[in-house]
């Protein structure tokens, strides 16, 4: 379990001794192989281009080693990194199976561009690793896949995270967000070794109790009360209103209340109170996941091999959602002669995800629906047929096609299949003991098929019919076939090849001078295409479809039968790195890289981006004068500076158009769509990085400490800016800001207790990031304040000052007086703001930032004889969250369920409430109406049509601080003499609980502090994992 020390720092320190003995041998790769295998990894940092001797590593990196025992507890590669690396934050995007984690290294450097780190597999950068934005991930249906998801974690030997400019500059522009280098296992000389592992995970269904949703009784009472109030928005929604209207008693009820209702109406309404449908229980389940893998490895003097197969089957917590993965990996290295070594590896995997169509409209997503459906609504009629929901519809509409989520689940289907093949060939030619040439060719092909089927009896199909309804003669009907369903297939293929060649010289001159120099070039070509086809009137039994007769060409665009996309990109790069080490204590390094890419409509001078870095390392601890200080083992000082540039490839100084077909009249012609605004003044985005760090080890490694300070200044940041629509475009990219990230990273590792049978170690890593926008272009039409001087995630809000006599929010103006919204924004009678945008900007108050100021992990490991107990906490402090208002004050839809805040709103009976009242006007008040009514109307018109003010109230901003018990793991290593006799080399079992509890600031009405602000998030799953690992 010593390998639980994942950090570079701990490894650095434990290696001091070994480094001394291997100092002479690093020049000779043949000899290097003879160094104790176990330490090989720790001794070098694998950057993907080079293996750098740690003693000369001037950049900042962290290596996570995945050994046979821990592999049992991670399901995906990205999960392995969660909470393990200082400065790396990972956020689970959704609870759906196979969903990727969003990983950020040292905060955000770019706003517009990709923010994901670059993933590298055995030296070859992977394509297709971008994690989609959070907004897209709300749909469980969009089962996103990244190419990382295809890698079997059991094949991984280690993961190295490169963080600062010195470490990442060699990767060029793509490394702006950091680099994650995956090194897979390879065979080792010796007898064949067989390893088997399995892992069984149970993720129980989590209740929605924390959301505080209304129960049937509360909802019925609310509907009854609203029906008598002057809040008439969607007045006919809700079962209560339907019962009363159905019996023709609406007017009577409004006049006389409950007592005026007939016994029949009262009985029907009371019956609703006793129905309590638990939608979470109906739509969610306990999920069970299994994972198995076998690997065989071995080899002789000339050749080694590694072969593995893996299978995993994952259930989603949402019923009807599942995923599986099948992997095989083959790797071999062959030493042909003293000079030449070649290697080949092939990674093949197939993934399949199954769900049903949940993206027709927002509410058809089961996660959303479970929050919106009324608990008095039952999904089945008494005769067993589906009952259609009359309250939950898309957007704000009052009715829509028939919808029942259980019908949708059984009559629609969505399957995604991914197939991925990666092949890497490499060769190393050792000319002399100091000069070698290495070359590597990587091929990656990804293909996926998304197969969607909507049956005749499904909302998805009904929606299509509704949207395709036209008047034929005098009838209104859909032009699509009116029987059968719809079958859509999307096929996508992408392939990339990367070739790189590097000439590397490493030489020692005399006793004191070491030089290292590398020159190289890399070319890469990526192409991708997708084909979409659709068939209507589809019969899944006969596999046939019917013809579609379009009334006009325009309809082809809305209901296409065929669509294609095609992209192609090429990249060329040159790079060089070098370092000089004096007396093994002083190292100076530098690297430079030119990245070229195909950019259409961009001046050729922008084709090549230069990036460079310089760095230095001083091993103070090795100074003769430090040797006397016995309690200090190691003491290193590192410093680096680097610059990176980036240009937005989608923005051109010219007006770029896309050819399309159109038929303005009947004739089909080619047209050019010019949908992107040209921007001749766009400049490069530049980021300067400074890093200074120190590593210490005290008391023979009993305490190790690593401290890093970084400063990152990004200027001319490229960002998307909304344009006045009068320009003819809605947005463009501009250089809008200068931003800095300053931060500290601490990694402290202590051996608290170290006896023969009992070890206790503690690791604490803390990242403190301080982000500040130094300059921001504020357009004169912007109504929210500039973030200049504030973090990029700044939250601004309107300060409230209680409620007025109608229960509407009052605001604190600059003079500290409580004023109404109308007074604050000087609304005219139609609710239009009459103060200038500049004046509006001054009304806001800074509340805090959405990014944590302090984050990190706290890991304790106890080892007693063969037992290991690991306790990992992760924490985030100092962030704020803007939550969605519990209900809208002018657009609250009584048909849908909501949280209990609506019950505590201000009413004439509840005037002490701090939650705003509901407000509604069916018509503009007459000219004779009172001023008070007119004023209130103008606020109402503002809230309904123009204003964000309600969402921007300070009451919707909350603190978010939390500590989460991320993992509690107990492992046992079998070490019985009899095992050897039957050939078992090692065996471990473990049980682990993930996300057992969280200690946090108030997150009422939300499931987890992490997902506060999104009432529709899936809960962060609690998982119980059993792992078994046996080696023969």
């Amino acid at each position, binding site marked *: 379990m010593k390998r639980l020390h994942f950090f570079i720092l701990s490894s650095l320190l434990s290696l001091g001794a070994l480094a001394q003995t291997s100092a002479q041998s690093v020049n000779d790769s043949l000899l290097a192989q003879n160094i104790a295998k176990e330490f090989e990894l720790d001794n070098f940092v694998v950057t993907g281009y080079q293996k750098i001797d740690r003693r000369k590593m001037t950049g900042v990196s962290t290596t996570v080693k995945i050994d046979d025992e821990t592999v049992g507890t991670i399901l995906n590669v990205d999960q392995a990194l969660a909470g393990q690396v200082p400065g790396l934050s990972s956020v689970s995007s959704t609870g759906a199976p196979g969903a990727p984690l969003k990983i950020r290294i040292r905060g955000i450097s770019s706003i517009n561009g990709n923010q994901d780190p670059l993933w590298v597999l055995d030296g070859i950068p992977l394509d297709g690793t971008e994690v989609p934005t959070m907004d897209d991930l709300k749909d469980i249906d969009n089962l996103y896949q990244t190419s990382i998801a295809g890698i079997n974690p059991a094949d991984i030997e280690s993961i190295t995270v490169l963080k600062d400019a010195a470490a990442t500059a060699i990767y060029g522009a793509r490394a702006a967000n950091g680099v994650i280098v995956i090194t897979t296992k390879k065979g080792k000389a010796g007898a064949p070794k067989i390893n088997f592992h399995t892992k069984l995970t149970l993720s129980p269904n989590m209740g929605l109790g924390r959301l505080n949703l209304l129960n049937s009784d509360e909802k019925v009472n609310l509907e009854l009360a609203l029906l008598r109030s002057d809040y008439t928005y969607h007045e006919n929604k809700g079962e209560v209103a339907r019962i009363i209207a159905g019996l023709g008693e609406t007017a009577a009820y409004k006049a006389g209340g409950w007592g005026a209702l007939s016994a029949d109406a009262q009985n029907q309404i009371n019956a609703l109170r006793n129905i309590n449908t638990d939608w979470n229980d109906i739509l969610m389940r306990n999920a069970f996941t299994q994972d198995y893998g076998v690997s065989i490895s071995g080899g002789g003097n000339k050749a080694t091999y590694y072969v593995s197969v893996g299978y995993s089957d994952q259930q989603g917590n949402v019923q009807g959602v599942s995923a599986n993965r099948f992997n095989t990996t083959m790797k071999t290295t062959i030493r042909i002669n003293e000079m030449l070594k070649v290697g080949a590896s092939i990674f093949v995997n197939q993934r399949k995800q199954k769900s049903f169509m949940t993206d027709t409209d927002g509410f058809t997503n089961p996660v959303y629906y479970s929050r919106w459906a009324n608990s008095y609504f039952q999904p089945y009629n008494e005769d067993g047929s589906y009952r259609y929901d009359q309250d939950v519809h898309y957007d704000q509409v009052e009715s829509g096609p028939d919808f029942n989520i259980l019908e949708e689940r059984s009559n629609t289907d969505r399957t995604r299949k991914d197939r991925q093949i990666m092949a890497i060939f490499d060769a190393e030619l050792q000319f002399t003991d100091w000069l070698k040439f290495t070359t590597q060719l990587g091929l990656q092909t990804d293909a996926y098929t998304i197969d969607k089927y909507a049956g005749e009896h499904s909302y998805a199909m009904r929606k299509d019919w509704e949207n395709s309804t*036209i008047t034929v003669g005098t009838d209104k009907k859909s032009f699509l076939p009116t029987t059968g369903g719809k079958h859509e297939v999307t096929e996508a293929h992408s392939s990339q090849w990367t070739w790189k060649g590097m000439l590397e010289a490493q030489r020692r001159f005399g006793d004191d001078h070491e030089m290292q120099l590398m020159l190289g070039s890399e070319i890469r070509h990526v192409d991708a295409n997708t084909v979409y086809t659709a068939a209507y009137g589809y019969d899944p039994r006969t596999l046939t479809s019917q013809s579609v007769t379009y*009334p006009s060409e325009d309809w082809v665009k809305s209901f296409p039968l065929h669509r294609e996309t095609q992209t192609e990109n090429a990249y060329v790069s040159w790079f060089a790195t070098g370092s000089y080490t004096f007396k093994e204590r002083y190292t100076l390094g530098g690297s430079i890289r030119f990245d070229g890419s195909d950019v259409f409509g961009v001046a050729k001078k922008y084709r090549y981006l230069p990036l460079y870095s310089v760095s230095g390392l001083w091993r103070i601890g090795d100074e003769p004068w430090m040797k006397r200080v016995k309690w200090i083992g190691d003491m290193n000082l590192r410093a680096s500076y680097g610059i990176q540039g980036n240009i937005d490839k989608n923005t051109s100084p010219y007006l770029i158009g896309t050819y399309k077909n*159109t038929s303005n009249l009947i004739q089909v012609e080619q047209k*050019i*769509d010019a949908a992107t605004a040209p921007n001749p003044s766009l400049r490069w985005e530049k980021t300067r990085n400074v890093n200074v760090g120190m590593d210490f080890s005290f008391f023979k490694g009993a305490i190790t400490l690593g401290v890093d300070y970084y400063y990152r200044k990004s200027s001319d940041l490229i960002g998307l800016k909304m344009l006045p629509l009068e320009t*003819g475009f*809605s947005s463009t990219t501009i250089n809008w800001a200068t931003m800095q990230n300053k931060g500290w990273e601490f990694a402290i590792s202590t051996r608290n207790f170290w006896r023969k049978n009992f070890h206790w170690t503690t690791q604490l890593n803390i990242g403190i990031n301080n982000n500040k926008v130094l300059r921001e272009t504020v357009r004169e039409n912007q109504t929210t304040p500039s973030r200049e001087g504030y973090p990029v995630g700044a939250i601004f809000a309107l300060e409230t000052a209680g409620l007025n006599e109608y229960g509407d929010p009052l605001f604190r103006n600059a003079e500290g007086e409580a004023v109404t919204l109308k007074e604050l924004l000087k609304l005219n009678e139609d609710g239009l703001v009459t103060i200038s945008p500049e004046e509006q900007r001054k009304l806001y108050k800074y509340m805090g930032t959405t990014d944590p100021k302090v984050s990190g992990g706290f890991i304790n490991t106890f080892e007693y004889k063969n037992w290991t107990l690991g306790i990992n906490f992760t924490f985030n402090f100092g962030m704020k969250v803007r939550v969605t208002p519990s209900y809208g004050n002018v657009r609250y839809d009584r048909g849908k369920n909501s949280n209990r805040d609506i019950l505590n709103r201000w009413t004439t009976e509840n005037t002490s409430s701090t939650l705003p009242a509901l407000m509604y006007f069916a018509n503009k008040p007459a000219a004779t109406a009172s001023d008070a009514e007119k004023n209130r109307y103008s606020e109402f018109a503002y809230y309904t049509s123009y204003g964000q003010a309600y969402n921007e109230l300070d009451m919707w901003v909350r603190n978010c601080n939390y500590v989460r018990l991320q993992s509690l793991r107990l492992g046992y290593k079998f070490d019985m003499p009899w095992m050897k006799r039957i050939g078992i080399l090692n065996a471990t079992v473990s049980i682990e609980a993930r996300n057992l509890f969280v200690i946090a600031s108030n997150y009422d009405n939300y499931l987890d502090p992490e997902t506060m602000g999104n009432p529709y998030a899936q809960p962060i799953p609690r998982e119980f994992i059993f792992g078994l690992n046996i080696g023969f």
Partner: protein
Amino acid sequence: MKNIFLLSLVLLLASCDKFLDIQPTGKVIARTGEEYRALLTGAYDEFPNDRSLSTLRTDEMFLDKTDLTPNDYNTYFDIWVWNDATPSETTASFNWMHFYHPIYIASYIIEKEGEIEEASPADVSQLVGEAYMLRAYSYFILVNLYGKPYTKCNPTTDLGVPLMVSADVEAVLERSTVEQVYQQILSDIDMAKQYLNVDKWEDDFKYRFNKISADALLARVCLYMGRWQESLDASKAVIAAYPELEDITTTGYTMPDNYKSKEAIVCLERVMPVAYKSIGYPDKNFITSIVTGDLRKNRYFKAKTSQVYDLLKGGTNDTRSTFRSAEFYLTAAEAAARLGDLNEAIDHMTPIVNNRYLAARRTPTINAMKAMTQDQLIDAILESRRIELCFEGHRWFDLRRTTQQSITKKYGDDETYILEEGDSRYTILIPKEAISANPLLAQ
């Protein structure tokens, strides 16, 4: 060995630029005449059918509570009842950016006139002329949707729409006055006249502006401005070029709103596209008010039941009309009548009557006109204009510039909605997405 590597590196360097020269499928920066034409085709293609949408606000259309689809209710009901203050969120919006994007493309082409390659001077001139026309026509519709009617306001102080007359994405504009917008329209028409050189387009390209369309737009613009003489002169120029009318009293006529009709001058906008046509029905009171013998009652409408009529105009791919000859007879007649020249007005009405009325009703109709006072004749011409151009997107603008009469709409038995005479809702509010993108518009 090292030399070989260096050599290959040099070769690589040389071939790199080529390797990176990837022409993305379908992407283009317009350079040739053909490409600029495709750019303009794209702008034409995008041009909104908002004149048709405005039909909903007029007294032409009736929504039937018994068969209005939920989707149509959610999308169009609030437009029909002029609920501009608190429309439901799903209500369709009149366009803003889709007028300004063609305006941008038009300005772009105008600015690039000297840089268009591989095209004859005549082709370039026509292209630029069409760009001026497209810009003028876009502003004409914008100012009539979102600005007060020229003759019913103080055009020099009342606000119209922002004037963007250069291809500049960095500009942030305030609203110009109605007068400024109209002056820009007149100036663009004037420029277009100097550039346009195609007299007639083939049927399939009739969506493009031709030479006479500059006079056609001028006639309409001056009519809206109350400049009767200029409107009359321009109308007469259009009539001279396009004198023919469909004779709907015979068989074998083509519906005048069809782009293949001999009346068609420019056919850019759709006449009641299917999506709009299927929302409701023509107002019964309107149809029954048409006198018997006026065959437009039978050719433009068909009784479905005793209460409900179907519209025979619009609704197909072929029904498109922006300018057609009948409009200019009516415009000439109205302008002449307003100038007091009643005989000339009747002269312009005669071809309309001859091609629309039963033979037996023609002379009595003309005679009746001859007996009218100036005001009566103007009313008769406006009524004929209403019938002739019904459902072609003229009614809303005509109501605005003329009587701004009160309109009452009934939905089902119990819901009544009233637009008062001269109601402020005769001017549509600027879409809220435009205001949130540029709060300077909120004034």
